[in-house]
């Protein structure tokens, strides 16, 4: 297995927030913490685009570089995780992250009062026994250890959000782009899902 990544197809995302809801429910994420959210650009204007954003599990993660207590680690599959026991809630990871992925349960409080950082785990839990209650309480469900993909991607009704091995999901996306066969100005359902075989002839 290569490197795990998320890929959001902006042509397909319909801003339903199903991924956000699935994530919150699966991991019982507390109120005020959003591991995933949907961002819309040019909202209401023809040609608007939405994209689902969470931790992108960066190959060279800035959060890992700035953490003063060195609680971040990367799994063999390229998933960026952290040990909450050593987190001091300094918020440096939040400042370093270009996606705003690190979240704090107590919101924008003073240094150390924010609480322990929480972020998307790619549904891979954390440094506790796989599938244990302790792991669930701190990091949420470990679906990867169950041989499943992150629920946000598996729940996505339009399959805009893809998750998994980067080479495999790139192939899926490449296949889509080839079927679309369009100019950049095109927008709509026929663009997102491609043309009928008959129509394409």
């Amino acid at each position, binding site marked *: 297995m290569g490197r795990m990544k998320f890929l959001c197809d902006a042509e397909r995302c319909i801003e339903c927030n199903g991924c956000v809801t699935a994530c919150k429910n699966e991991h019982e994420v507390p109120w005020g913490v959003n591991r995933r959210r949907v961002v819309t650009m040019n909202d209401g204007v023809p040609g608007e685009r939405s994209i689902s954003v969470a931790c992108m599990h960066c190959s060279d993660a800035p959060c890992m570089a700035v953490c003063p207590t*060195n609680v971040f*680690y990367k799994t063999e599959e390229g998933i960026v995780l952290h040990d909450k*026991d050593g987190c001091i809630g300094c918020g440096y990871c939040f400042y370093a992250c270009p996606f705003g992925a690190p979240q704090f349960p107590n919101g924008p409080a003073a240094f150390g009062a924010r609480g322990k950082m929480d972020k998307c785990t790619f549904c*891979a839990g954390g440094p506790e026994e*796989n599938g244990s209650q302790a792991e669930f309480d701190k990091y949420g469900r*470990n679906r990867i*250890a*169950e041989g499943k993909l992150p629920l946000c991607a598996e729940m996505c009704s339009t399959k805009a959000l*893809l998750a998994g091995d980067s080479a495999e999901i790139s192939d899926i996306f490449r296949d889509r782009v080839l079927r679309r066969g369009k100019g950049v100005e095109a927008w709509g359902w026929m663009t997102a899902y491609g043309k009928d075989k008959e129509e394409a002839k």
Partner: protein
Amino acid sequence: MKTRIPYVIAAALAGALLAGCGEQPQVASYKDGKYSGKPDTRPWEAGTFKGDKGAWEQALRTRIRSQNEYKRVE
């Protein structure tokens, strides 16, 4: 007393001139941190797959490929 003044000045001057020789470079060098938390078990090691990495990879690969609905409907 008067005769000592030039010696004192000379010593102070020498000290001031040589002070630069002991200066150390003060450029901070970045060192990669080492993970300080608890070790984590790999996903296939415990629970559902009981150490069978091949079965875990196959299960995950099936799920990843099933995200391509073109392959599912054709």
